[in-house]
C-alpha cells in the first residue's frame, strides 16, 4: 500500500487542484482530504456521503455554579487564562487539560466531551474518499487528520486498492505533522516566489526531520522562470528529487468554477500533458516504485 501526500508549506500553491487532477488520472486508489481545517477537495470531487461520523475531541471545563464555593483554585491553576473572575469558562481559551476538573476541592467542574467535527466516507466518480470537517475554532486538528488517514487506509485494504492520494494542509505545524507520518512519499508543490521558496524549504526540512521521502514540483513556474530555476537547482544541490514544473494556466480556475478537475475541463490542453508527465515521473520515483 502506497500513500502519496501532497503538501506545500505555503498555502494556495495548487495542492488541491493538483490532487484532483491526479485523482482523475490514477486508478485503484482512495482519496483522502487531510486539510480538515479548510477542506476544498470535495468542491471538485462532489462526494456522495455514505457514512457520517461525529469526531469527538477532548473535554472542556464547565463550572457548576451550584457546587462552586468560589475559592478561586481553578483560576490559579489554569495556565490558559480561560476562567473569569466570575467563574465562567471561555470555551475558546480552554485547552481541555482538565487540571481544574481534577483539582477543584468541591468537584464542581464537569468535563463534557466535545463533538468538534465530522468525518465522512464517500463515493466519488474517481473512487472512494475520506474527508472531514473540523468545527470552526476547534482544536485537535492533528487527531482528526490522523483519523481520516487511518480510515482511508482501512478502505484501501478492504477494497484491495493499492494507493492513497492525500491532499495535505498548509504550514508545518500540528496538522501537517499528523499528515506525513508513515507516508510513502510527499509531493511538495512550490511556487516560484520568495515566499514559495522559503516555505518549501521549511516543508523539505520537516520531511527530513520525520524521515519521509520528499519530491518537489513547481506550479505556475512561468510567473517567474528565474525563481523556478532556482528551486530546481536548490533541489539538486540538496538531494531532493525535482519532478517537474507546471505553467500558470487560467484553465485551473475555470475548471474549478465548473466544479471539475482541469483534466475533465480541457482534456486536450497542453497543461494536462504536463500533469500526466508529472504523474508518471512521480510513479516512477524510487519511493513510489518501491525502489528504496
Amino acid at each position, binding site marked *: 500500500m502506497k500513500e502519496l501526500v501532497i503538501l506545500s508549506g505555503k498555502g494556495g500553491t495548487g495542492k488541491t487542484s493538483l490532487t484532483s487532477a491526479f485523482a482523475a488520472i490514477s486508478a485503484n486508489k482512495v482519496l483522502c482530504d487531510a486539510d480538515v481545517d479548510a477542506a476544498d477537495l470535495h*468542491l471538485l470531487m462532489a462526494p456522495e456521503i455514505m457514512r457520517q461520523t461525529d469526531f469527538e475531541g477532548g473535554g472542556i471545563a464547565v463550572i457548576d455554579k451550584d457546587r462552586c464555593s468560589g475559592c478561586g483554585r481553578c483560576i490559579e491553576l489554569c495556565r490558559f487564562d480561560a476562567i473569569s473572575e466570575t467563574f465562567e469558562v471561555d470555551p475558546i481559551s480552554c*485547552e481541555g487539560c482538565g487540571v481544574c476538573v481534577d483539582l477543584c476541592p468541591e468537584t464542581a467542574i464537569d468535563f463534557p466531551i466535545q463533538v468538534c467535527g465530522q468525518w465522512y466516507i464517500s463515493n466519488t466518480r474517481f473512487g472512494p474518499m475520506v474527508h472531514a470537517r473540523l468545527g470552526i475554532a476547534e482544536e485537535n*486538528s492533528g487527531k482528526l487528520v490522523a483519523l481520516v488517514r487511518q480510515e482511508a487506509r482501512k478502505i484501501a485494504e478492504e477494497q484491495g486498492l493499492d494507493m492513497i492520494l492525500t491532499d495535505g494542509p498548509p504550514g508545518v505545524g500540528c496538522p501537517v505533522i499528523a499528515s506525513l507520518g508513515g507516508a510513502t512519499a510527499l509531493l511538495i508543490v512550490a*511556487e516560484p516566489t520568495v515566499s514559495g521558496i522559503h516555505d518549501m524549504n521549511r516543508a523539505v526540512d*520537516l520531511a527530513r526531520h520525520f524521515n519521509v521521502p520528499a519530491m518537489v514540483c513547481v506550479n505556475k513556474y512561468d510567473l517567474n522562470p528565474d525563481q523556478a530555476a532556482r528551486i530546481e537547482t536548490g533541489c539538486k544541490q540538496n538531494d531532493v528529487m525535482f519532478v517537474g514544473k507546471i505553467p500558470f494556466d487560467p484553465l485551473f*480556475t475555470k475548471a*474549478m468554477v465548473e466544479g471539475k478537475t482541469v483534466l475533465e475541463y480541457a482534456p486536450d490542453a497542453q497543461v494536462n500533458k504536463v500533469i500526466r508527465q508529472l504523474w508518471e515521473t512521480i510513479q516512477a520515483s524510487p519511493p513510489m516504485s518501491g525502489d528504496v
Partner: protein
Amino acid sequence: MVISVASGKGGTGKTTVATNLAVALGPYVRLLDCDVEEPNAHLFLKPSIESVESLMTFVPAVSEEKCTYCRKCAEICRFKAIAVLGKTVITFPELCHSCYGCQEVCPEGAVYESSRKIGVVEKGRGLGDVEFVHGRLQVGEAMSPPLIKKVRSFEDHDGVTIIDAPPGTSCPVIAAVKGVDFVVMVTEPTPFGLHDLKLGVGAVRLLGLPCGLVINRSDIGNKDVKKYAKDEGIPVLMEIPFDRRIAETYSRGRLIVEESREWKERFIELYERIIRLTGKESHR
C-alpha cells in the same frame, strides 16, 4: 489600533495586504507576523534583526529518586505526555501542552520543570521604518499558539499594529485574531476562496469581531464572493485585480506600494475605511 489580516484559504494574499498596508502607513507602524509556521513578511520588509529570543515552554521531568510510581501524573494528563510503566516514568515532550497538571498533582514533588524550545521571536526594523516582529516555529514542533501569543505581546495599542495571521480556522488562527479591533479577510473570487472565506467569517463572528473583505485577483473566477459579501453585509474594502506585473513584483519579494504611488494611496484609503468602520481613533 490592532488589525489582523486573515483568510480561510492559504495563498490568497494575506502577506501582500499586511506588508503593503504597514509600509503605506509609514514609520512606527508595527507589523507582527503571526504565521509562525510559514512566516513570509520578513521577505518583503527585509528587516535588520535587532534581537532574537527563544520561546521555551514547560515540559515535565521526573526525579526517579523521589517518584513512588503512584501514577497520579499519568492520570491527570489528558495529552498522554507522561506515562508510568512499572518502575519507569516516560515523558513525551512533544505531546505536552504545558498545563503543569503533573507537577500540581504529584504528592512527592518529584515532577520538576524542564523545557522544550517552540521557536524564536525576532524583532527589528524593516522597510519604511516599520517595526517588525515575527515568530518562527521550530521545524518539527506541532504547537504554534504559545508562540503566536508571544509575538502578540508586542502589540502597540497607542499606535497601529498590523498582524499577518496564519490560514485556516483552527487554534492558530484564533490565537492570531482574538481580541483585535478589526479583521481584514483576504479572499479570491473562486469556489475554494468562497468556501474557505465562509469558514473564516464564521471564526471571526464566533469571536464577535468586525471584519471587511479584500478581494485579491478580483477579475478571475466568478461573482459569488461579491454576492456572498452583499448578502452577509460584509463590506468590500478593496479589490486587487490579477495583474502579471503585481504577481511578478511579489515573486521577487518587492511591495507594490514601493513601486506605485497610486497603490500606496489605495492602501492608505483601505486603512481609513477601516477606521471609519470601527469608529476608533486613527493613531496615525
